[in-house]
């Protein structure tokens, strides 16, 4: 694990998301509850929709382009759709959001 301090919890709207630019593309950081944060790839595997712009409900997000729904915990598409988005570990420590960047560095991307 390689924890990187991303932002204050309050920088992410409740039931909203912000994006982090990384070497492997944009990562969406979702805030599903007052102190509950998930990070996934921002790109919907269907048509590349920006998941960070989707409606966040429970621990899921709905892609704004064609309403694919993904579990933010497992990254799996829900319902009849089949697809998977990458998920990244996060934690909230004293109001700060930390993202595990070990899978987001150029080393991994270059493989």
């Amino acid at each position: 694990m390689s924890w990187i301090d991303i932002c204050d919890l309050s920088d992410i709207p409740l039931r909203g998301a912000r994006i982090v630019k990384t070497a492997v593309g944009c990562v969406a950081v979702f805030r599903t509850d007052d102190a509950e944060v998930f990070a996934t790839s921002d790109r919907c595997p269907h048509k590349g929709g920006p998941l960070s712009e989707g409606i966040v409900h429970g621990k899921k997000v709905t892609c704004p382009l064609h309403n694919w729904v993904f579990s933010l915990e497992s990254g799996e598409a829900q319902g009849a759709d089949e697809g998977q988005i990458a998920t990244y570990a996060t934690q909230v420590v004293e109001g700060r959001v930390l993202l595990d960047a070990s899978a987001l560095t150029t080393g991994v991307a270059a493989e």
Partner: protein
Amino acid sequence: MTQKLIIIGAGMAAGRALEHLFEQAPDAYDVTLFNAEPRGTYNRIMLSPVLSGDKSFEEIVTHTAEWYEENGVTCRFGEKVVNIDRAAKTVTSDTGDVLPYDRLVIATGSNPFIIPLPGHDLDGVIAYRDLEDTNAMIALGDKPDAKAVVIGGGLLGLEAAAGLALRGVDVTVVHIMGHLMERQLDEAAGYLLRKALVDKGITVKCSANSKEILGENGKVKALLLDDGTELPCDLLVMAVGIRPSVVLASDAGLATGRGIHVDDQMVTSDENILSLGECVEHNGDVFGLVAPIFDQAKVLTKTLLGEEASFVNKEVATKLKVTGCDLFSAGDFADGEGREDIVFRDPARGVYKRLVIEENRIVGAVMYGDTADGNWFFGLIKDREDISEMRDTLIFGPAYQGGDSLDPMAAVAALPADAEICGCNGVCKGQIVDAIGNGATTLEDVRAVTKASGSCGTCTGLVEQVLSVTLGDDFVMPAAKSVCGCTDLTHEDVRRLIKSRALKSQPAVWQELGWSTPNGCHVCRPAINYYLLADWPLDYADDPQSRFVNERNHANIQKDGTYSVVPRMWGGITTPDELRAIADAADKFDVPTVKVTGGQRIDLLGVKKEDLPAIWFDLNQAGLVSGHAYSKGLRTVKTCVGTDHCRFGTQDSTGLGIKLEKHLWGSWTPHKLKLAVSGCPRNCAEATCKDIGVICVDSGYEVSVAGAAGMEVKETQLLCKVGSEEEAIEVISAMTQIYRENAKYLDRIWKWVDKVGLDWVKAQIVDDLKNRKALAERFEISQSVYRTDPWAEHAREKAETYQPIANLTLEAAE
């Protein structure tokens, strides 16, 4: 010679350790006990009943003066230790006395956290930690018309508020987060708790930021919030959290982090000094609950006596109960992967239960209103019991294992005969039951006989339920389409209930209408958000997170993730300056495509999200505002040139179009709303296929509605003819408002008019002039909030949120 043991702090941890010590080896140490508070150990947890008057202080004292005397403890109460000299093995008190020790125990506990707001040192600003604080609050209750503000909507703050309210004080709770006790409760339970507190007369302000404490002659006078609200108070209680008290230890050079570092034997970095309680940090954990601290007391005693013992922080579930509120929270229900929820809501009884399941085990439980099964769930959490066998009925508690399920019809069955079912036609349940008794067996039969559900239709579901309850199995309930999988209610039911039960927030809807998910889904949330803002424009604040991306970002997302930007051109009229500003913006932001739209304006396609606030700012400078080309709301009012230039024009159609657009812009509607005004029946503005169209004629204005030119093509139907522009604007305002108040989310006007019938609409706004006026007035009230440019607001206040929150590519490039 007996060893000298000095203990700093006589809180509950030290008290428990001394009990163990004297039980096991009464003569092992010569004990001196310091306490900054001028008294010995009492049960701090029970200060709330003292505040509320249920208990006296004497009842919560756990160690009396006699007890200390019998056990030979030298008490130095009200005396503070100011220094530890580890080399000389002495402590110095604030009286200047220097005392030697062989072993030292630091049990300084924790300090309340005081937010360093301006004015935090004023007289009358207190924490809620000890008997002095409690007494200050009790004394306030004796003052007539006393007012208090409590900062902090956690357990402690609410206990303080509840106690003060019981003492007759006018209390306001100010909480920075969106709902109360957010660490222990989810939003729904937080909503119910808030409701209960408000019923007790406590004012609750959530999402409220304190800015400054105002004083007068050195005494607190009011709390100022950053939105400018001033809350007058005679006492301000800060209950925002506690911090381990480590200063004495860190000054003495002991290892500290968040707390004083101790090992498994409760020994600090100095082998002669031990520590326990809220002031310690063990393997990264700090402690606020009494159970692990009592375990520490046992281990610390063994260590003092030279016996083997190790402290293990058992991951026990915690549970809590707030005085006067039927509330239960145990375990962990917030963070974590692979978790599922089981939610039960019984709005009629105000009951909410939520279980969090992980790998077939309950890991968290939140309950409100009916907590009788709390301990049973708590047991299942603690024992990590596999619940897969009883999962289906688990939420109903132990009594319902294998029992019957609840009857959803019970509420309708319980309605009295004179309960009104159809508001439009004034039909009561009794009349419907009579109609059924006389042979009606279907919805259509009932409608034909009684007119119930024959007008606006929102009571259709209720009428069907009455049929079902009355006829039993003879009535086959038509499969009414519910809003989504989160509820069995239809849109019509939800709209009716939001109005009739005065539901003014999302948590209120989720709870009172028995939603099965914690906060809806992408289907229901935008609808509920719309219904709430349409019905309660002054009470409910629009929630951007419940909106589709286009409405949240005030631009239309394109298939490549860029956006299109369409500035408003009132009535399709523009100027060379506006066109220059649009051209400049297109150049500056490298806009790849500029297109003229069907709504008589210009679309800039392919703008990057990051650039939106900047392009809006530039367009604003030229007087251009959002065209709302992205909204379920007023889009455009298309016009022809009318009498200004056209030789056939009968009226100033452009002028009326501009007036209408300036009147209606910014309003949210169930679906998009497009208007047009044509200056003569040649209809160059194509007004007869719009949601609302106006055709000017010599004698006035023909207002028609319910046209469409999308997947369906429909000609508008005449609503009425009016003689003046003012009247046309009033009729159109009323039409817009009646559509806003009654239609199902995502029904265009034509679809909604098909359901309710044009005759009903005419009766409401053409024939009933009083109702027309009232509708137009309600529209104006809503517009007082929404007739504003979101682009200007976002460019000014939210520009930051359009940028990535962090950029890790820079680090990766190293």
